[in-house]
């Protein structure tokens, strides 16, 4: 591989941001087109990588520059960009959502130039976390993400139950606290690994080969769990999620709920579970309990909401509970389900938020009792909303059903009655999703909304792209699952090996 495709993928939004800097700020349409071109290029590249990946070989492929390029030798940090079946769906997801998020912000005219720049930096940051195979670079990109989010929320956000300043602060502080826990864990793990092996190396692979003592693994895993868990809105570290999404502008909600959250789940599998299998074994039942509480609790929470964004905010907490439950099974089927569910939820949540964004833009309200009968004036918008709603309640034929089903299979096997509680979540999910959907879209046509225009032109991009993925992923789950499996199976093989060796 002579061309560093992944680095190029990462650079294309950055390049676009750079170009936008030189465009006069009055030309906001041009800024948006450049942003669309940058994210579109990244999307095409990631599709190329996705379908060029050889699943039969597996492992890390598309390694940029033929291998790790040393960066900070004393810390063993290197520029190590590569993908496997775990990273690829996430990479693709990031670019799908990034691309559509540009179009979801199409009608924003307030400081559109800056918005696009921040958005592109944000997308690049998220992408970097998924393709970096080096722990340090992973953390670096994670920190890159935080700042644009804060700025975007407090400038372009909206104040409802809480002010946008509060929401932005809450999001940011949570992300930072999570990363503080992570940092402690990362440093401790690095130092310990250095003492055991004598060679500084920050790559996930190298760290996973280090045999850490069991007690150490248990303590460190707890730190990482809090770090990644608060990012994944694990109960009880979830309360940033509804407020944050409600305050954030559409594009941020899409990216945050769609992919940023998934860094938590991705990191949990890629780093915490992979490097610390004994710790994972110890904490798995607790993760499962927290996951199940998250599912049921947040679903009930969503039921009590009247603001559309809060409904989806709580719903995403609930869905992340399934992901946690899947990871906690530590079995191939369950973890496959968890990863696939992250992808599915990402697509679904992004579609949901973009549709809510359009509804808000056109009706100036997200308060469900004030809405109703939207489908008479905006049928395409309603189709998008319904598709997201149906995916959210796990309708077969859409991408989210099979992942949920696989999680259920494995977690039911491992945790029995606990899993039943989580499965019961599908009923409550159906209840709140249908309620929100029906009360927003259906019912008598309202006079005050008769002038709203259906989505059209560039506004259709989120619906077409994300809706298309929802359906294709639902009809051909093997497109997603074979890929995920090729990444997850080796990781779990490694873990099982470690578990058999490691028993004190």
């Amino acid at each position: 591989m002579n061309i560093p495709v992944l680095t190029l993928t990462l650079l294309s939004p950055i390049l676009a941001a750079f170009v936008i800097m030189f465009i006069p700020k009055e030309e906001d349409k041009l800024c948006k087109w450049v942003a669309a071109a940058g994210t579109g290029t990244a999307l095409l590249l990631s599709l190329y990588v996705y379908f060029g990946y050889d699943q039969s070989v597996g492992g890390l492929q598309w390694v940029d520059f033929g291998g790790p390029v040393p960066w900070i030798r004393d810390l063993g940090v290197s520029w190590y960009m590569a993908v496997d079946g775990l990273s690829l769906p996430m990479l693709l997801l990031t670019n799908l959502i990034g691309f559509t998020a540009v179009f979801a912000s199409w009608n924003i005219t307030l400081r559109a130039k800056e918005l696009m720049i921040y958005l592109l930096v944000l997308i690049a940051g998220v992408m970097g976390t998924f393709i970096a195979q080096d722990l340090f670079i992973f953390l670096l990109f994670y920190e890159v993400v935080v700042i644009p989010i804060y700025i975007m929320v407090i400038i372009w956000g909206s104040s409802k139950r809480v002010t946008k300043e509060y929401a932005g602060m809450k999001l940011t502080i949570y992300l930072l606290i999570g990363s503080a826990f992570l940092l402690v864990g990362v440093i401790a793990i690095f130092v310990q690994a250095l003492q055991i092996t004598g060679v500084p190396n920050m790559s996930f692979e190298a760290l996973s080969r280090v045999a850490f003592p069991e007690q150490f693994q248990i303590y460190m895993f707890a730190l990482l769990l809090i770090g990644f868990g608060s990012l994944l809105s694990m109960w009880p570290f979830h309360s940033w999620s509804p407020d944050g999404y409600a305050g954030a502008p559409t594009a941020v909600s899409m990216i945050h709920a769609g992919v940023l959250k998934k860094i938590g789940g991705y990191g949990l599998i890629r780093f915490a579970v992979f490097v610390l299998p004994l710790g994972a074994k110890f904490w798995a039942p607790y993760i499962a309990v927290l996951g199940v509480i998250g599912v049921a609790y947040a679903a009930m929470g969503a039921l009590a909401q009247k603001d559309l964004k809060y409904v989806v905010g709580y719903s995403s907490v609930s869905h992340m509970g399934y992901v946690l439950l899947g990871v906690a099974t530590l079995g191939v089927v369950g973890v496959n389900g968890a990863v696939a569910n992250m992808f599915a939820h990402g697509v679904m949540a992004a579609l949901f938020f973009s549709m809510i964004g359009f509804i808000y833009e056109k009706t100036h309200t997200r308060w469900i009792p004030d809405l109703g009968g939207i489908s008479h004036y905006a049928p395409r918008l309603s189709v998008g909303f319904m598709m997201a709603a149906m995916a959210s309640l796990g309708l077969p034929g859409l991408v989210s059903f099979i992942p949920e089903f696989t999680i259920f299979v494995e977690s039911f096997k491992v945790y029995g009655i606990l899993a039943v509680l989580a499965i019961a979540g599908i009923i409550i999910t159906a209840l709140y999703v249908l309620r929100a959907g029906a009360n927003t879209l259906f019912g008598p046509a309202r006079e005050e909304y008769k002038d709203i225009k259906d989505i059209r032109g560039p506004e259709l991009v989120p619906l077409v792209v994300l809706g298309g993925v929802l359906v294709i992923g639902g009809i051909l789950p093997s497109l997603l699952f074979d890929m995920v499996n090729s990444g997850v199976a080796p990781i779990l093989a490694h873990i099982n090996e470690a578990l058999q060796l490691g028993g004190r």
Partner: protein
Amino acid sequence: MVEFALGHAWLVPLLPALAFVLIVFLTRPWPKLSSSIAIAAMASSFVLAASIAYGVFTNPHFIEEPLVYSLRWFGMEGFTVNVGVKLDPTSAMMLFMVSLVATLIQIYSTGYMKGDPQYSVFFSYLSLFAASMLGLVIASNLLQMFIMWELVGLCSYLLIGFYTFKISAREAAKKAFMTTRIGDFGMLLGLLFLQIIFGTLDLVELAQRVPNYEQYGLSLGLLTFIAILVFIGPIGKSGQFPLHVWLPDAMEGPTPVSALIHAATMVVAGVYLVGRTMFLFTEVPGAMEVVAFIGAFTALFAATIAITQREIKRILAYSTVSQLGYMMLALGVGSLSASMFHLWTHAFFKALMFLAAGSVLHALHDKADVWKMGGLIKKMPITGWTFVIGGLAIAGIPPFAGFWSKDEILAVTMEYAQHGHGLGYVLFAMAAFTAFLTAFYMWRMIFLAFFGAEKPENHPHESPLSMTFPLMVLAVFATVGGLIGTPWANAWGQWIHFGHPHAAAPAYGLMALSVVLALAGIGLAYTLYCKDTEKQRAQQLAEKYPTLYKISYNKYYIDELYQWFNQKVVDGGAKVLYWFDIHVVDKFINDMSELTGLTGKGFRYFQTGKLQTYALVFFLGLLVITVVLAFGDPTSAGIMGGVK
């Protein structure tokens, strides 16, 4: 053709699915074109399905060896799912029936939905529904079946709520989805159990493995539990007690939908599913008793509600619930063939009655109360007489279709009782009494709506041919459809059965009994609602027993119970949890940040602004360090900067 059809059975659901895609993406602005595409696709499906049925019913080896082919859908270590086709007489019969009824109803809809602004959308939904239903029928795998099962649920949701401007339609659609969802939850658990224990959801493989359940470390009790879990799905889908509440409300949808989905096809999916998993149920007598009892109870229960309802479609809906109960009862007593037979005949006569009711509503501009109709048969002869044929069929008058299937169910129930199941006699009594009630409420409706004096404020007119043609076809099937399963030459039972074919001698006593019951019901209805032109006696009866009347009219207050549960328990719980989230979890987080703020506030008093204070602290600090370095022991000095 037959070979091709057998080898390409997946085309049967695929064609309507393609029609759906075409209509949605291309032809939506042109209603006529859309409906033509939908009907063409559906008719081609029907031709294929008919060829398949021909192929299956001319080759007796299909009885024992179903034709199965499949391909890998997705998979991973320890969990692989194939999708495929399973063709045997049962599925061939269903394919034929579903595609026939769907084709007829689409033709009917061209008349019924004429001029509706959402005309194309309606046909796209109907096509999607037909695709999912046919997919359900041919599924070779329980997961595949479950997927189609949910998709038909989705279509049902969309079609019940088709008139999106009506709040009642919106609520009914939601209710239907939620209620069946509860059933699906149980079924999903059952499927998970099966997958985890037997490692497959493939129908053929399961059928081989389930009888040896003990090898898989399973007790009879647990298997019974699994079977009951699976059965919860059909309870929801087929409107069995206590999850029947959605079906009558589902009549908010356009009438062709009620006929297609909520009478002839989708609601029997539950029955069909139990029929497909008979290998599981026959292993566990406990679960079979549950099925039989719920079936019989539902049959009776719904019939007692139907006798006091006033809206024409609502009466038909409760009658559907009741008839579905019959089918479940037949399954519960172990007779797949009786159940499927009733499913077959019921599909025709119930679709017929719904379509005829739709024709009436069409003529009366959606006036649904039967008490406000009367004498319609003079102005609407085709509708009226076909409805009467349906009424004769459902009441069980020979030689109409319903007689044979209902008689078969009564016969197998009796046989079940005679084989040492004491419960069987109770079931039989319930079924027989239901037969009487069925005849009564059905004919009450017919006499009120079609006979008697005409109401001057109504101006009925016969519907166009596009609507009456399906009525006539269905009327033919409702008349002769049962003749293939008469006790003298029971071709049906030979082809569609589970275990050994049921070959009992004709039970003339039973036949006589069922005819007498039917005639008694019709006679009672005649005396109360036709001969007595003022209908005084009927009202006197209602006034004499007000409690009974009210309970029946208000459907045993089950809706109210659910509503209470939903509003108080579920929503209340949600509110409590939300309160908890805001005032406990989030409060804790906010308090933490408050604490951080307070700490900062406290510490800032060190900042006096007086330079000399800082200098003093500075010097004192220096002094302490100096003293420690000079006189302290080396370890404590280590803290100060690593000096050894």
